[in-house]
């Protein structure tokens, strides 16, 4: 991504897709979209399209992986070969999916009441069907709804969004262009119940003041995402 081809990201307070700096893309969440999984959810977040399925708690295989004190959480994040403009066609885990699978496991180990199910496993599989920046927060948002749909005991929802710096200004929910040509990108996820930070990563640089402001922006946006998550679950109970 050479700086030479960098497009203007913010013009008169409007971003490339016409949003203001504090606006989210349109987010649609639907729970229980799959029949065979214990719980599932689909999230359409702008041009991102993510589907999540949850199995468990169930017996661990192979057995020596099991933990006698708590359930183990397996998180699998996969980008489909047709999901992006770039190549994802080689199949198998790559650097990116291994990283996101690992941080996903950490997010949900801190959210699920794992100590209630010793010697079992909870498997969360997320497939990214279409990507346009911010797929990891979309993936974890979907996984969180799928967990609730499966009836796995959790402390709350994992809700969040990424905030970044584009053309020197802080903007909420970066898309792919802004992510590639912006100065910084920081995805943050919160526990909807007690506002614990479950995920915090950062690419690029932010000053301390910008960082603190970004956390506040993320928190405000995550509340909107959480409202949609709760709605998607309630809808299926009517």
């Amino acid at each position, binding site marked *: 991504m050479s700086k030479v081809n960098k497009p203007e990201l913010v013009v008169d307070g409007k971003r490339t897709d016409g949003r203001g700096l504090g606006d989210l893309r349109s987010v649609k969440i639907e729970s229980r979209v799959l029949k065979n999984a214990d719980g599932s959810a689909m999230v359409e977040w702008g041009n991102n399209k993510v589907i999540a399925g949850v199995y468990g708690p169930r017996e661990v295989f192979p057995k020596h992986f099991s933990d*006698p004190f708590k359930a183990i959480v397996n998180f699998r994040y996969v980008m489909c070969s047709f999901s992006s403009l770039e190549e994802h066609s080689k199949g198998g885990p790559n650097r990116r999916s291994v990283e996101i699978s690992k941080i996903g496991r950490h997010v949900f180990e801190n959210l699920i009441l794992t100590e209630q*199910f010793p*010697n079992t496993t909870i498997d969360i599989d997320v497939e990214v069907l279409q990507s346009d920046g911010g797929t990891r927060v979309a993936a974890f948002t979907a996984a969180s709804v799928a967990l609730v749909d499966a009836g796995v005991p959790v402390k709350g*929802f994992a809700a969040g969004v990424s905030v970044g710096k584009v053309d020197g200004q802080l903007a909420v929910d970066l898309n792919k262009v802004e992510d590639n040509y912006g100065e910084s990108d920081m995805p943050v996820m919160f*526990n909807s119940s007690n506002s614990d930070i479950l995920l915090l990563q950062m690419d690029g640089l932010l000053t301390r003041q910008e960082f603190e402001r970004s956390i506040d922006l993320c928190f405000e946006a995550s509340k909107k995402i959480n409202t949609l998550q709760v709605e998607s679950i*309630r809808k299926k109970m009517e």
Partner: protein
Amino acid sequence: MERKIVTPGELLFDFPKRVSGTYVENGKTYSAVLGMLSDGFFIPLKGRYTPFPGDLVVGVVMEERFSGYLVDVNAPFQGVLDSRDLRQEFKIGDVLIARVDSIDEINNLILVDPKKLSNGEVLEVNAVTIPRIIGRNNSMIEMVRSLTKSEIFVGKNGRIFLKNGNIALAIEAIKKISNEAHTSGLTDRIKNFLEARLNEQSK
């Protein structure tokens, strides 16, 4: 009676209370699963079956060992039937009812008093809706039994064994109860549903 659907993470009580499907943090009780708050009681609407001593469950024999059998009881882990307690032999795939004798903190689940079930069908439903399927003083299940004339055994683990009578109708009714477990006035609605179906079929 006031009913409210609660999602995980919502505050239920300002004091610690140990109920299934909840957790306690800083002396307050929060919901951990999707549930219903009704007259100060929290009723989970989702979740897997957790075995409790004394429960009668419907299981499937999964594995035969020298010391006994491993039985799938629709829980996150398998139950064990000790061959020293048994007077009959089972084959893999046999369906049985058994009583949960004990369960320890690392989920060793011991089953006793097995009885083989045969010539019937097994239906699996969401285990948390079992109390609703049984109904107050067995009212709901007795109604389904008498109207469909089938023998129905309801296991606490969300598995239901049906035999003889109008099994297809009974299954339809039980699935309806399970899907609408969180709504009120269910007994009357199921009664109307069953009677309408029976009228249709007798024509």
